[in-house]
Protein backbone atom coordinates (compact mmCIF):
# COMPACT_ATOMS: atom_id res chain seq x y z
CA UNK A 1 0.00 0.00 0.00
CA UNK A 2 1.31 3.41 -0.96
CA UNK A 3 1.19 6.22 1.61
CA UNK A 4 0.59 9.73 0.37
CA UNK A 5 0.22 12.86 2.48
CA UNK A 6 -1.14 16.05 0.95
CA UNK A 7 -1.03 19.51 2.45
CA UNK A 8 -1.23 18.26 6.05
CA UNK A 9 -1.59 20.92 8.71
CA UNK A 10 -1.58 20.65 12.48
CA UNK A 11 -1.14 23.27 15.16
CA UNK A 12 -1.49 23.20 18.94
CA UNK A 13 -2.79 26.34 20.66
CA UNK A 14 -1.70 28.50 17.73
CA UNK A 15 1.74 26.89 17.46
CA UNK A 16 2.11 25.50 13.94
CA UNK A 17 3.72 22.06 14.03
CA UNK A 18 2.92 20.74 10.56
CA UNK A 19 2.60 23.39 7.88
CA UNK A 20 1.28 21.93 4.62
CA UNK A 21 3.28 18.69 4.59
CA UNK A 22 3.39 16.79 1.28
CA UNK A 23 5.10 13.47 0.75
CA UNK A 24 4.69 10.07 -0.78
CA UNK A 25 6.09 6.67 0.12
CA UNK A 26 5.99 4.04 -2.60
CA UNK A 27 4.61 0.61 -1.85
CA UNK A 28 7.24 -1.61 -0.24
CA UNK A 29 9.74 1.19 0.35
CA UNK A 30 10.99 2.78 3.54
CA UNK A 31 10.92 6.50 4.18
CA UNK A 32 12.79 8.02 7.09
CA UNK A 33 11.61 11.30 8.56
CA UNK A 34 14.50 13.02 10.26
CA UNK A 35 14.42 16.08 12.43
CA UNK A 36 15.33 17.54 15.78
CA UNK A 37 13.52 16.42 18.92
CA UNK A 38 10.18 18.18 19.38
CA UNK A 39 9.98 19.31 15.76
CA UNK A 40 6.75 17.39 15.07
CA UNK A 41 7.91 14.05 13.64
CA UNK A 42 5.80 11.96 16.00
CA UNK A 43 2.82 14.29 15.45
CA UNK A 44 3.12 13.58 11.71
CA UNK A 45 3.12 9.83 12.34
CA UNK A 46 0.18 10.04 14.72
CA UNK A 47 -1.78 12.17 12.23
CA UNK A 48 -1.37 9.38 9.65
CA UNK A 49 -3.23 6.90 11.89
CA UNK A 50 -5.45 9.63 13.37
CA UNK A 51 -4.20 9.21 16.90
CA UNK A 52 -4.01 12.97 16.52
CA UNK A 53 -6.61 14.61 14.28
CA UNK A 54 -4.96 16.92 11.72
CA UNK A 55 -6.44 20.39 11.21
CA UNK A 56 -6.60 19.90 7.45
CA UNK A 57 -5.08 17.96 4.58
CA UNK A 58 -5.31 14.46 3.18
CA UNK A 59 -3.67 11.18 4.16
CA UNK A 60 -4.02 8.41 1.59
CA UNK A 61 -3.25 4.84 2.53
CA UNK A 62 -3.64 2.97 -0.71
CA UNK A 63 -6.40 4.89 -2.46
CA UNK A 64 -8.32 5.75 0.70
CA UNK A 65 -8.13 9.09 2.47
CA UNK A 66 -8.10 8.03 6.13
CA UNK A 67 -9.39 11.45 7.18
CA UNK A 68 -12.68 10.69 5.39
CA UNK A 69 -13.28 7.43 7.27
CA UNK A 70 -15.80 6.93 10.07
CA UNK A 71 -14.72 5.12 13.24
CA UNK A 72 -15.61 1.66 12.00
CA UNK A 73 -13.93 2.15 8.62
CA UNK A 74 -10.90 3.65 10.34
CA UNK A 75 -10.56 0.60 12.60
CA UNK A 76 -10.72 -1.67 9.55
CA UNK A 77 -7.97 0.41 7.96
CA UNK A 78 -5.89 0.32 11.18
CA UNK A 79 -5.74 -3.47 10.97
CA UNK A 80 -3.47 -2.91 7.96
CA UNK A 81 -1.17 -0.58 9.89
CA UNK A 82 1.49 -1.50 12.43
CA UNK A 83 2.80 1.13 14.84
CA UNK A 84 5.92 0.79 16.96
CA UNK A 85 5.74 3.35 19.76
CA UNK A 86 8.67 5.26 21.17
CA UNK A 87 7.99 3.73 24.60
CA UNK A 88 7.16 0.32 23.05
CA UNK A 89 3.76 0.63 24.77
CA UNK A 90 3.55 -3.02 25.80
CA UNK A 91 0.48 -3.73 27.94
CA UNK A 92 2.17 -4.01 31.31
CA UNK A 93 -0.55 -6.11 32.94
CA UNK A 94 -0.11 -8.83 30.29
CA UNK A 95 2.69 -11.28 29.59
CA UNK A 96 4.55 -11.17 26.29
CA UNK A 97 2.34 -14.02 25.04
CA UNK A 98 -0.84 -12.11 25.97
CA UNK A 99 0.51 -8.92 24.37
CA UNK A 100 1.00 -10.70 21.07
CA UNK A 101 -2.25 -12.63 21.34
CA UNK A 102 -4.24 -9.45 21.97
CA UNK A 103 -4.64 -8.31 18.32
CA UNK A 104 -4.93 -11.89 17.03
CA UNK A 105 -7.80 -12.77 19.37
CA UNK A 106 -9.71 -9.65 18.42
CA UNK A 107 -9.15 -9.48 14.69
CA UNK A 108 -8.78 -13.07 13.47
CA UNK A 109 -10.69 -16.32 13.70
CA UNK A 110 -7.58 -18.32 14.53
CA UNK A 111 -7.81 -21.18 16.99
CA UNK A 112 -5.87 -21.06 20.29
CA UNK A 113 -3.30 -23.44 18.76
CA UNK A 114 -2.85 -21.29 15.66
CA UNK A 115 -2.53 -18.16 17.80
CA UNK A 116 0.18 -19.85 19.85
CA UNK A 117 2.01 -20.88 16.68
CA UNK A 118 1.81 -17.33 15.31
CA UNK A 119 3.14 -15.89 18.54
CA UNK A 120 6.06 -18.29 18.64
CA UNK A 121 6.86 -17.70 14.99
CA UNK A 122 6.90 -13.94 15.48
CA UNK A 123 8.95 -14.13 18.68
CA UNK A 124 11.46 -16.36 16.91
CA UNK A 125 11.74 -13.74 14.16
CA UNK A 126 12.67 -11.04 16.66
CA UNK A 127 14.92 -13.48 18.54
CA UNK A 128 13.04 -13.49 21.83
CA UNK A 129 11.20 -16.79 21.98
CA UNK A 130 12.49 -17.35 25.50
CA UNK A 131 10.67 -14.20 26.72
CA UNK A 132 7.22 -15.58 25.92
CA UNK A 133 6.08 -15.87 29.55
CA UNK A 134 7.82 -12.75 30.87
CA UNK A 135 6.06 -9.60 31.97
CA UNK A 136 7.11 -6.33 30.25
CA UNK A 137 8.63 -5.12 33.55
CA UNK A 138 11.13 -8.00 33.31
CA UNK A 139 12.41 -6.90 29.88
CA UNK A 140 15.23 -4.53 28.96
CA UNK A 141 14.60 -1.49 26.72
CA UNK A 142 15.90 -3.30 23.63
CA UNK A 143 13.82 -6.40 24.38
CA UNK A 144 10.70 -4.25 24.80
CA UNK A 145 11.30 -2.71 21.36
CA UNK A 146 11.66 -6.16 19.83
CA UNK A 147 8.47 -7.41 21.47
CA UNK A 148 6.69 -4.18 20.50
CA UNK A 149 7.81 -4.78 16.93
CA UNK A 150 6.64 -8.39 17.06
CA UNK A 151 3.22 -7.27 18.33
CA UNK A 152 2.95 -4.61 15.62
CA UNK A 153 3.79 -7.11 12.91
CA UNK A 154 1.69 -10.03 14.08
CA UNK A 155 -1.31 -9.07 11.94
CA UNK A 156 1.05 -8.80 8.95
CA UNK A 157 0.34 -5.11 8.30
CA UNK A 158 0.84 -3.57 4.88
CA UNK A 159 2.06 -0.28 6.34
CA UNK A 160 4.46 -0.01 9.28
CA UNK A 161 5.12 3.16 11.24
CA UNK A 162 8.08 3.41 13.60
CA UNK A 163 8.18 6.22 16.16
CA UNK A 164 11.77 6.75 17.31
CA UNK A 165 12.60 3.03 17.35
CA UNK A 166 16.04 3.47 18.93
CA UNK A 167 15.46 6.26 21.44
CA UNK A 168 16.93 5.43 24.82
CA UNK A 169 18.94 2.47 23.54
CA UNK A 170 22.71 2.02 23.57
CA UNK A 171 24.53 2.16 20.17
CA UNK A 172 24.92 -1.63 19.93
CA UNK A 173 21.22 -2.30 20.60
CA UNK A 174 20.30 0.55 18.25
CA UNK A 175 22.20 -1.19 15.45
CA UNK A 176 20.48 -4.47 16.28
CA UNK A 177 17.06 -2.81 16.09
CA UNK A 178 18.01 -1.16 12.78
CA UNK A 179 19.01 -4.55 11.40
CA UNK A 180 15.78 -6.04 12.69
CA UNK A 181 13.73 -3.32 10.96
CA UNK A 182 15.61 -4.05 7.74
CA UNK A 183 15.08 -7.81 8.10
CA UNK A 184 11.35 -7.36 8.77
CA UNK A 185 11.12 -5.03 5.80
CA UNK A 186 12.67 -7.69 3.56
CA UNK A 187 10.46 -10.40 4.99
CA UNK A 188 7.08 -8.63 4.98
CA UNK A 189 7.62 -6.12 2.12
CA UNK A 190 5.73 -3.40 3.94
CA UNK A 191 5.56 0.29 3.22
CA UNK A 192 7.40 1.81 6.17
CA UNK A 193 7.81 5.24 7.66
CA UNK A 194 10.50 5.60 10.30
CA UNK A 195 10.57 8.72 12.41
CA UNK A 196 13.92 9.24 14.08
CA UNK A 197 16.77 11.60 14.83
CA UNK A 198 19.22 8.70 14.76
CA UNK A 199 21.37 8.78 11.59
CA UNK A 200 22.53 5.19 12.19
CA UNK A 201 18.94 3.98 11.77
CA UNK A 202 18.29 6.38 8.91
CA UNK A 203 21.32 5.35 6.87
CA UNK A 204 20.66 1.64 7.41
CA UNK A 205 16.96 1.45 6.55
CA UNK A 206 16.01 4.42 4.36
CA UNK A 207 15.13 4.34 0.69
CA UNK A 208 14.23 8.01 1.00
CA UNK A 209 14.96 10.62 3.62
CA UNK A 210 12.79 13.60 4.56
CA UNK A 211 14.18 16.28 6.86
CA UNK A 212 11.54 18.12 8.86
CA UNK A 213 12.17 21.67 10.02
CA UNK A 214 9.76 24.47 10.95
CA UNK A 215 6.68 22.46 10.06
CA UNK A 216 7.74 21.32 6.61
CA UNK A 217 10.30 19.22 4.77
CA UNK A 218 13.45 21.11 3.88
CA UNK A 219 15.04 18.09 2.22
CA UNK A 220 13.66 15.13 0.27
CA UNK A 221 15.93 12.59 -1.38
CA UNK A 222 17.88 9.36 -1.16
CA UNK A 223 20.35 8.71 1.68
CA UNK A 224 23.23 9.32 -0.74
CA UNK A 225 21.77 12.68 -1.78
CA UNK A 226 21.27 13.53 1.88
CA UNK A 227 24.92 12.80 2.69
CA UNK A 228 26.10 14.90 -0.23
CA UNK A 229 23.63 17.73 0.19
CA UNK A 230 24.97 21.29 0.19
CA UNK A 231 22.06 22.55 2.26
CA UNK A 232 23.38 24.16 5.40
CA UNK A 233 20.59 22.72 7.51
CA UNK A 234 21.45 19.19 6.35
CA UNK A 235 25.13 19.82 7.07
CA UNK A 236 24.28 21.09 10.52
CA UNK A 237 22.14 18.04 11.16
CA UNK A 238 24.84 15.66 9.95
CA UNK A 239 27.60 17.38 11.87
CA UNK A 240 25.62 17.02 15.06
CA UNK A 241 24.45 13.51 14.42
CA UNK A 242 27.43 11.71 12.94
Amino acid at each position, binding site marked *: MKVKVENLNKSFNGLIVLDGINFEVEEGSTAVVLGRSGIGKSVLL*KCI*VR*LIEPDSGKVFIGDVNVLDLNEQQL*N*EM*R*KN*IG*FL*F*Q*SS*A*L*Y*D*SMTVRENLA*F*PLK*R*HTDLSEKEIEENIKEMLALVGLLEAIDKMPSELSGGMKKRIGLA*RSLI*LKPKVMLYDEPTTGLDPVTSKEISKLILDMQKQFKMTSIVVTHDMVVASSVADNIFLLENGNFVFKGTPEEFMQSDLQIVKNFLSQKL
Partner: protein
Amino acid sequence: MKIISIITESTNRFFETIGGLMNFSIRFFAEVFRSPYEIEEIKKHMDELGVKTLLIVSITGFIIGLVLGMQTQPVLARFGAELFLPGTIALSVIRELGPVITALIFAGRVASGIGAELGSMRVTEQIDAMVVSAVDPFRFLVVTRVLATTLMLPLLTIYVDFIAIIGGFVAVNITQNMTFPYYISLILDVLTFTDFIQGIPKTFVFGFVIGIVGSYLGFNATKGTEGVGRASTTSVVISSILIILIDMVIVRLTLMIFPE
Protein backbone atom coordinates in the same frame (compact mmCIF):
# COMPACT_ATOMS: atom_id res chain seq x y z
CA MET B 1 -7.69 37.93 46.45
CA LYS B 2 -5.43 34.93 45.98
CA ILE B 3 -7.74 32.78 48.09
CA ILE B 4 -10.73 33.84 45.98
CA SER B 5 -8.94 32.96 42.75
CA ILE B 6 -7.90 29.59 44.17
CA ILE B 7 -11.50 28.89 45.25
CA THR B 8 -12.81 29.98 41.84
CA GLU B 9 -10.27 27.82 40.04
CA SER B 10 -11.01 24.79 42.22
CA THR B 11 -14.76 25.22 41.77
CA ASN B 12 -14.36 25.50 37.99
CA ARG B 13 -12.18 22.40 37.95
CA PHE B 14 -14.71 20.50 40.10
CA PHE B 15 -17.60 21.34 37.78
CA GLU B 16 -15.48 20.58 34.72
CA THR B 17 -14.79 17.17 36.20
CA ILE B 18 -18.48 16.62 36.95
CA GLY B 19 -19.36 17.62 33.36
CA GLY B 20 -16.68 15.31 32.01
CA LEU B 21 -17.99 12.52 34.23
CA MET B 22 -21.51 13.00 32.88
CA ASN B 23 -20.26 12.67 29.28
CA PHE B 24 -18.14 9.68 30.24
CA SER B 25 -21.18 8.03 31.89
CA ILE B 26 -23.35 8.64 28.81
CA ARG B 27 -20.66 7.05 26.67
CA PHE B 28 -20.54 4.09 29.07
CA PHE B 29 -24.27 3.44 28.69
CA ALA B 30 -23.98 3.80 24.92
CA GLU B 31 -21.16 1.24 24.79
CA VAL B 32 -22.11 -1.24 27.50
CA PHE B 33 -24.62 -3.21 25.41
CA ARG B 34 -22.48 -3.36 22.27
CA SER B 35 -20.38 -6.42 21.51
CA PRO B 36 -17.66 -7.59 22.11
CA TYR B 37 -18.58 -8.01 25.76
CA GLU B 38 -15.14 -8.96 27.13
CA ILE B 39 -16.68 -11.30 29.73
CA GLU B 40 -13.30 -12.76 30.68
CA GLU B 41 -11.90 -9.30 31.36
CA ILE B 42 -14.91 -8.40 33.55
CA LYS B 43 -14.51 -11.64 35.54
CA LYS B 44 -10.78 -10.96 35.94
CA HIS B 45 -11.42 -7.46 37.29
CA MET B 46 -14.15 -8.67 39.65
CA ASP B 47 -11.80 -11.30 40.97
CA GLU B 48 -8.99 -8.77 41.47
CA LEU B 49 -11.27 -6.22 43.13
CA GLY B 50 -12.69 -8.83 45.49
CA VAL B 51 -9.27 -10.11 46.51
CA LYS B 52 -7.91 -6.59 46.86
CA THR B 53 -10.60 -5.47 49.29
CA LEU B 54 -11.79 -8.64 51.06
CA LEU B 55 -9.41 -8.49 54.04
CA ILE B 56 -9.85 -4.79 54.75
CA VAL B 57 -13.66 -4.89 54.48
CA SER B 58 -13.77 -8.01 56.67
CA ILE B 59 -11.83 -6.32 59.46
CA THR B 60 -13.79 -3.08 59.11
CA GLY B 61 -17.15 -4.86 58.95
CA PHE B 62 -16.46 -6.86 62.09
CA ILE B 63 -15.31 -3.80 64.01
CA ILE B 64 -18.32 -1.75 62.88
CA GLY B 65 -20.71 -4.38 64.24
CA LEU B 66 -18.69 -4.78 67.44
CA VAL B 67 -18.39 -1.06 68.19
CA LEU B 68 -21.98 -0.36 67.22
CA GLY B 69 -23.10 -3.08 69.64
CA MET B 70 -20.88 -1.84 72.45
CA GLN B 71 -22.00 1.79 71.97
CA THR B 72 -25.70 1.05 71.69
CA GLN B 73 -26.01 -1.50 74.50
CA PRO B 74 -25.73 0.97 77.44
CA VAL B 75 -28.32 3.28 75.85
CA LEU B 76 -30.84 0.49 75.37
CA ALA B 77 -30.06 -0.91 78.84
CA ARG B 78 -31.24 2.39 80.39
CA PHE B 79 -34.71 1.65 78.99
CA GLY B 80 -34.55 -2.07 79.64
CA ALA B 81 -34.64 -2.66 75.92
CA GLU B 82 -31.48 -4.75 75.50
CA LEU B 83 -33.38 -7.35 73.50
CA PHE B 84 -33.70 -4.76 70.74
CA LEU B 85 -29.89 -4.60 70.42
CA PRO B 86 -29.53 -7.28 67.69
CA GLY B 87 -32.25 -5.68 65.61
CA THR B 88 -30.77 -2.20 66.07
CA ILE B 89 -27.35 -3.40 64.99
CA ALA B 90 -28.74 -5.23 61.95
CA LEU B 91 -30.92 -2.30 60.87
CA SER B 92 -28.07 0.21 61.15
CA VAL B 93 -25.67 -2.04 59.32
CA ILE B 94 -27.97 -3.20 56.51
CA ARG B 95 -29.63 0.14 55.81
CA GLU B 96 -26.71 2.52 56.09
CA LEU B 97 -23.38 1.63 57.66
CA GLY B 98 -22.65 -1.49 55.62
CA PRO B 99 -23.28 0.07 52.19
CA VAL B 100 -21.63 3.43 52.89
CA ILE B 101 -18.58 2.22 54.80
CA THR B 102 -17.94 -0.57 52.30
CA ALA B 103 -18.31 1.89 49.43
CA LEU B 104 -15.89 4.36 51.03
CA ILE B 105 -13.30 1.64 51.63
CA PHE B 106 -13.85 0.33 48.12
CA ALA B 107 -13.37 3.86 46.78
CA GLY B 108 -10.10 4.25 48.67
CA ARG B 109 -8.76 0.95 47.45
CA VAL B 110 -10.26 0.57 43.99
CA ALA B 111 -10.92 4.06 42.56
CA SER B 112 -7.32 5.02 43.28
CA GLY B 113 -6.09 1.79 41.74
CA ILE B 114 -8.12 2.25 38.56
CA GLY B 115 -7.08 5.91 38.33
CA ALA B 116 -3.40 5.01 38.67
CA GLU B 117 -3.57 2.01 36.34
CA LEU B 118 -5.36 3.76 33.49
CA GLY B 119 -3.36 6.96 34.06
CA SER B 120 -0.17 4.99 33.73
CA MET B 121 -1.48 3.31 30.57
CA ARG B 122 -2.32 6.73 29.14
CA VAL B 123 1.06 8.32 29.76
CA THR B 124 3.01 5.28 28.52
CA GLU B 125 1.04 5.21 25.23
CA GLN B 126 -0.58 1.83 25.99
CA ILE B 127 -4.04 3.30 25.36
CA ASP B 128 -2.79 4.75 22.05
CA ALA B 129 -1.39 1.32 21.19
CA MET B 130 -4.86 -0.14 21.69
CA VAL B 131 -6.42 2.52 19.46
CA VAL B 132 -3.89 1.85 16.70
CA SER B 133 -4.51 -1.90 16.91
CA ALA B 134 -8.20 -1.18 16.19
CA VAL B 135 -9.39 -2.08 19.69
CA ASP B 136 -11.64 0.44 21.41
CA PRO B 137 -9.85 1.17 24.71
CA PHE B 138 -13.01 2.61 26.22
CA ARG B 139 -14.80 -0.69 25.85
CA PHE B 140 -11.85 -2.83 26.82
CA LEU B 141 -10.55 -0.77 29.73
CA VAL B 142 -13.42 1.37 31.00
CA VAL B 143 -16.60 -0.61 30.41
CA THR B 144 -15.09 -3.77 31.89
CA ARG B 145 -13.82 -2.01 35.02
CA VAL B 146 -17.02 -0.04 35.63
CA LEU B 147 -19.13 -3.19 35.23
CA ALA B 148 -16.80 -5.04 37.62
CA THR B 149 -17.06 -2.37 40.34
CA THR B 150 -20.84 -2.05 39.83
CA LEU B 151 -21.36 -5.79 40.28
CA MET B 152 -18.72 -6.40 42.94
CA LEU B 153 -19.64 -3.73 45.48
CA PRO B 154 -23.14 -5.14 46.22
CA LEU B 155 -21.61 -8.58 46.79
CA LEU B 156 -18.99 -7.14 49.12
CA THR B 157 -21.66 -5.14 50.95
CA ILE B 158 -23.78 -8.25 51.61
CA TYR B 159 -20.64 -9.93 52.92
CA VAL B 160 -19.77 -6.93 55.13
CA ASP B 161 -23.33 -6.79 56.47
CA PHE B 162 -23.01 -10.41 57.53
CA ILE B 163 -19.58 -9.91 59.12
CA ALA B 164 -20.82 -6.79 60.96
CA ILE B 165 -23.76 -8.77 62.34
CA ILE B 166 -21.25 -11.34 63.62
CA GLY B 167 -19.31 -8.46 65.22
CA GLY B 168 -22.57 -7.31 66.81
CA PHE B 169 -23.11 -10.81 68.20
CA VAL B 170 -19.71 -10.65 69.91
CA ALA B 171 -20.64 -7.22 71.37
CA VAL B 172 -23.97 -8.54 72.66
CA ASN B 173 -22.22 -11.44 74.34
CA ILE B 174 -19.86 -9.14 76.23
CA THR B 175 -22.76 -8.08 78.46
CA GLN B 176 -25.35 -10.80 77.86
CA ASN B 177 -25.34 -14.51 77.35
CA MET B 178 -27.17 -15.02 74.08
CA THR B 179 -27.00 -17.94 71.66
CA PHE B 180 -26.39 -17.25 67.98
CA PRO B 181 -29.74 -18.73 66.80
CA TYR B 182 -31.60 -16.54 69.31
CA TYR B 183 -29.56 -13.50 68.23
CA ILE B 184 -30.48 -14.17 64.60
CA SER B 185 -34.16 -14.75 65.46
CA LEU B 186 -34.28 -11.35 67.21
CA ILE B 187 -32.80 -9.77 64.06
CA LEU B 188 -35.29 -11.52 61.76
CA ASP B 189 -38.17 -10.30 63.93
CA VAL B 190 -37.19 -6.72 63.16
CA LEU B 191 -35.89 -6.85 59.58
CA THR B 192 -38.21 -6.36 56.63
CA PHE B 193 -37.69 -6.54 52.89
CA THR B 194 -37.75 -2.74 52.78
CA ASP B 195 -34.58 -2.64 54.88
CA PHE B 196 -32.71 -4.57 52.20
CA ILE B 197 -34.24 -2.35 49.51
CA GLN B 198 -32.86 0.66 51.35
CA GLY B 199 -29.42 -0.89 51.72
CA ILE B 200 -28.35 -3.03 48.80
CA PRO B 201 -29.60 -1.42 45.53
CA LYS B 202 -27.78 1.84 46.23
CA THR B 203 -24.48 -0.04 46.28
CA PHE B 204 -24.86 -0.66 42.54
CA VAL B 205 -24.88 3.12 42.13
CA PHE B 206 -21.89 3.53 44.48
CA GLY B 207 -20.00 0.82 42.58
CA PHE B 208 -20.76 2.54 39.29
CA VAL B 209 -19.59 5.91 40.66
CA ILE B 210 -16.32 4.43 41.92
CA GLY B 211 -15.60 2.73 38.60
CA ILE B 212 -16.55 5.66 36.41
CA VAL B 213 -14.66 8.27 38.47
CA GLY B 214 -11.45 6.20 38.62
CA SER B 215 -11.70 5.36 34.92
CA TYR B 216 -12.49 8.92 33.84
CA LEU B 217 -9.60 10.49 35.72
CA GLY B 218 -7.15 7.76 34.72
CA PHE B 219 -8.25 7.67 31.09
CA ASN B 220 -7.80 11.43 30.78
CA ALA B 221 -4.57 11.71 32.77
CA THR B 222 -1.94 14.06 31.39
CA LYS B 223 1.46 15.41 32.44
CA GLY B 224 3.32 12.15 33.03
CA THR B 225 3.79 10.57 36.43
CA GLU B 226 2.52 13.69 38.19
CA GLY B 227 -0.74 13.27 36.30
CA VAL B 228 -0.95 9.61 37.28
CA GLY B 229 -0.57 10.49 40.97
CA ARG B 230 -3.19 13.21 40.66
CA ALA B 231 -5.62 10.86 38.90
CA SER B 232 -5.19 8.35 41.69
CA THR B 233 -5.75 10.69 44.63
CA THR B 234 -8.46 12.76 42.96
CA SER B 235 -10.37 9.58 42.16
CA VAL B 236 -10.65 8.78 45.86
CA VAL B 237 -11.66 12.31 46.84
CA ILE B 238 -14.30 12.75 44.14
CA SER B 239 -15.80 9.29 44.42
CA SER B 240 -16.00 9.56 48.25
CA ILE B 241 -17.76 12.94 48.05
CA LEU B 242 -20.15 11.64 45.39
CA ILE B 243 -20.94 8.52 47.44
CA ILE B 244 -21.95 10.61 50.45
CA LEU B 245 -23.99 13.06 48.34
CA ILE B 246 -25.73 10.31 46.39
CA ASP B 247 -26.42 8.40 49.61
CA MET B 248 -28.18 11.44 51.02
CA VAL B 249 -30.38 11.72 47.92
CA ILE B 250 -31.14 7.98 47.77
CA VAL B 251 -32.04 7.80 51.47
CA ARG B 252 -34.45 10.70 51.02
CA LEU B 253 -36.00 9.09 47.92
CA THR B 254 -36.37 5.63 49.48
CA LEU B 255 -37.98 7.12 52.58
CA MET B 256 -40.47 8.85 50.30
CA ILE B 257 -41.16 5.66 48.36
CA PHE B 258 -41.15 3.35 51.38
CA PRO B 259 -42.39 5.46 54.34
CA GLU B 260 -41.91 3.91 57.79
